[in-house]
């Protein structure tokens, strides 16, 4: 039967059909749903790892031990996991291992748009690139076979537009993966212990493997020539192939399902068979460079199709016009005349991050922030953060600022899941080296940004099952920190008091600002009635507008008004109101 699956659902399906036994990942848009979907299939052990490096190493361990394994991460996750990824390319595996790298051209939800196809070449491993969900399922399944046939991890590379697009997949609802016994563990230290003496011969194996893979690339139907009008030949892969297919419906195509290593024979046959060859690829000129290395004349690539941002049908048509392959546009639609108020993502009403950043802004502290919903606090009106770059970076960034010796005091703000991901070594570094950095963990009891996944602080697994729970404050105390505080994130007075005291301290401080994400069911328990504004007291000073709560509106008279359908009674606006005009819902209305 045909089912509409997202690319991520299809990858999970492919892994299941391949008989995968272990799946592990750290949540990251656009890859998160792969593991969440895989968890619903029988016979697969799925777990959220604390970070991508841990996921990669766990995956290598289970693949060494003879179990087919999938690890999934967003593009920047592979940076975290790069160390084991590179040695995994040397050692190879006993059972198939597929690494999903989900890239994010256009940075829908990321700090950069790095092109992870380069990682495949960097580590000398093959990568497969599906163009739709049917291919995502098929390529994932095949990825395990290629992995075993060539004794190498295999990357399945997607982009946001493949991971989060739905298209039909023919699914056999009765499919049962082959029941395989784990083979006896083949103790083989020369292959799996990468001391220099053993690693040097493995590098030889890696280079020879790449040559055999190039031969396979020529044989496999993953790479196919679609002859059309021979005046124009287009080399493409992934989602770009779809845009190019619609923009140039009559052209000839070399569609690369396995773009690395390139299939040299097919490339030359295609190049010889067309009058003009162009390359349509999102982000870097990866294919273009590889083609040029093979001596192929490329007459249209990154000179026309941008290096920046995500492609769409209009971008690809624009490139075609630039190359003189498509006629100039006729009538362009008139720009919208109506004023379009922007609608950026915002912190939700009752978000426990808002009150913490409000206090930090009032104290005029330099705020080093981290990856999560709370990065939104950089936007006006909160405008409370100064630096942010990668998972776990805030703590060391704040420590570095302290070491530089400036007078301004700084703090680190980091989410609970991010703290467990890579904040722990940074906190240990401060405990070890000494300092007076203030670290605030925004403990909202979930991995909120990616859709509320569990982490060690919640003790919840992929399907919400109960696992061991670790308290952030216990981690700080175990490191020997003397100044560890747990504060209700909604309590701005207590937060202010603790921070002011900590600014005077000569040793490091860990503050756990704890309050469940307003979207979690637990946050609804005991929630008060919506607040309201006493218009006789409100003078329209605007202090409450500065917290950026979507529930607070400005009336035509400039006073504040609270939308009772949005307000979750967090109390922050009442705490900032200097005239006590904002009243709890339980207070009887007097006006």
């Amino acid at each position, binding site marked *: 039967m045909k089912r509409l699956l997202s690319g991520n659902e299809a990858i999970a399906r492919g892994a299941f059909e391949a008989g995968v036994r272990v799946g592990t990942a750290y949540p990251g848009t656009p890859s998160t*749903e792969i593991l969440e979907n895989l968890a619903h299939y029988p016979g697969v052990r799925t777990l959220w790892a604390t970070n991508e490096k841990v996921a990669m190493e766990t995956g290598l361990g289970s693949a060494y031990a003879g179990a087919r394994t999938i690890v999934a991460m967003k593009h920047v996750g592979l940076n975290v996991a790069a160390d084991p990824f590179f040695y995994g390319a040397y050692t190879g595996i006993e059972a198939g291992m597929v690494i999903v790298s989900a890239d994010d051209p256009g940075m*829908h939800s990321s700090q950069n748009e790095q092109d992870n196809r380069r990682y495949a070449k960097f580590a000398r491993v093959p990568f497969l690139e599906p163009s739709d969900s049917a291919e995502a399922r098929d390529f994932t399944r095949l990825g395990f076979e290629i992995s075993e046939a060539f004794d190498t991890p295999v990357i399945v590379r997607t982009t946001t537009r493949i991971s989060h*697009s739905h298209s*039909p997949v023919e699914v056999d609802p009765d499919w049962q993966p082959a029941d395989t016994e784990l083979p006896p563990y083949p103790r083989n230290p020369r292959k799996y212990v990468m001391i220099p003496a053993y690693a040097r011969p493995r590098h030889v194996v890696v280079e020879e493997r790449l040559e055999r893979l190039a031969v396979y690339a020529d044989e496999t139907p993953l790479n196919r020539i679609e002859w059309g009008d021979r005046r124009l030949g287009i080399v493409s892969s992934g989602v770009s192939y779809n845009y190019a297919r619609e923009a140039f419906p009559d052209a000839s195509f070399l569609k690369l399902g396995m773009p690395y290593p390139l299939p040299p024979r097919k490339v030359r046959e295609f190049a010889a068979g067309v009058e003009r060859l162009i390359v349509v690829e999102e982000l870097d000129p990866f294919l273009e460079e590889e083609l040029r290395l093979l001596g192929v004349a490329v007459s249209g690539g990154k000179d026309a199709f941008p290096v920046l941002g995500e492609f769409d049908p209009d971008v690809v048509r624009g490139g075609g016009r630039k190359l003189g392959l498509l006629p100039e546009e006729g009538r362009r*639609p008139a720009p*919208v005349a109506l004023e*379009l108020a922007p609608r950026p993502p915002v912190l939700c009403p009752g978000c426990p991050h808002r009150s913490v950043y409000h206090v930090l802004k009032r104290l005029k502290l330099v705020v080093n922030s981290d990856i999560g919903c709370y990065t939104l606090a950089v936007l006006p009106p909160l405008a409370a953060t100064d630096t942010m770059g990668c998972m776990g970076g805030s703590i060391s960034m704040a420590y570095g600022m302290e070491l530089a010796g400036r007078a301004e005091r700084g703090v680190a703000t980091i989410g609970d899941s991010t703290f467990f991901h890579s904040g722990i070594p940074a906190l240990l570094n401060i405990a070890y080296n000494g300092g007076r950095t203030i670290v605030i963990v925004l403990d909202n009891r979930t991995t909120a940004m990616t859709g509320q996944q569990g982490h060690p602080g919640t003790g919840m697994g992929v399907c919400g099952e109960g696992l061991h729970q670790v308290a952030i404050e216990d981690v700080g105390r175990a490191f020997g920190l003397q100044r560890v505080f747990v504060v209700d994130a909604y309590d701005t007075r207590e937060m202010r008091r603790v921070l002011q005291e900590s600014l005077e301290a000569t040793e490091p401080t860990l503050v756990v600002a704890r309050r469940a994400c307003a979207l979690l069911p637990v946050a609804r328990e005991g929630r008060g009635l919506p607040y309201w504004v006493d218009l006789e007291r409100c003078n329209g000073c605007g202090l409450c507008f500065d917290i950026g709560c979507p529930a607070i509106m*400005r009336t035509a008279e400039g006073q504040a008004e609270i939308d009772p359908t949005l307000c979750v009674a967090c109390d922050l606006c009442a705490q900032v109101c200097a005239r006590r005009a904002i009243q709890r819902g339980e207070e009887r209305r007097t006006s």
Partner: protein
Amino acid sequence: MKPLNFLLVGVGGQGILTASDILAELGLRAGYDVKKSEVHGMSQRGGAVSSHVRFGPRVYSPLIAQGAVDYLLSFELLEAARWATFMHPEGTVLVSTQRLPPIAVTSGGAHYPEPEEVRQELAGRVRQVFLVDAPQAAQGLGNPRVANTVLLGALSALLPFPLTQWEETVRERVPARFVELNLQALRAGQELVGTR
């Protein structure tokens, strides 16, 4: 036949993804190749959300080109105007009268349009514009959350798929305890635009 292009837009939390799931499933059941595309993550935090749905004998691109949208379903008034340049001149706009002013309006002083302003922005660009009072219809059914299905019902009045096919799809895609409510919403929406 060229693919039919539907663009569903609005604000995070309005049930746009559910509505686009139902629409895409309908296309699949009608025997078409289907692609549906949306972006998760940041866009869900109260930001603008869009979902592209395309049916046809063969659909390549998951995204619709500017100027190629046949049906725009806007679940919020302002958002309809944001996508005006995506409309095909022969296209149809169904816009809910639901108002969800963004922060730039509620506390920043930016302008929020009246329904007539939105209609005027779109009217010259397309064949027809329907302002659909989906919030009121949903309220009448006792649950404002089914405004999304009301708008789908309005669309169903304009498309050549039998109501039974829509109903089957809703049964498949909606949790059992909400099926009857959503079927009512579907019919209510169809009546708002006029039955075939």
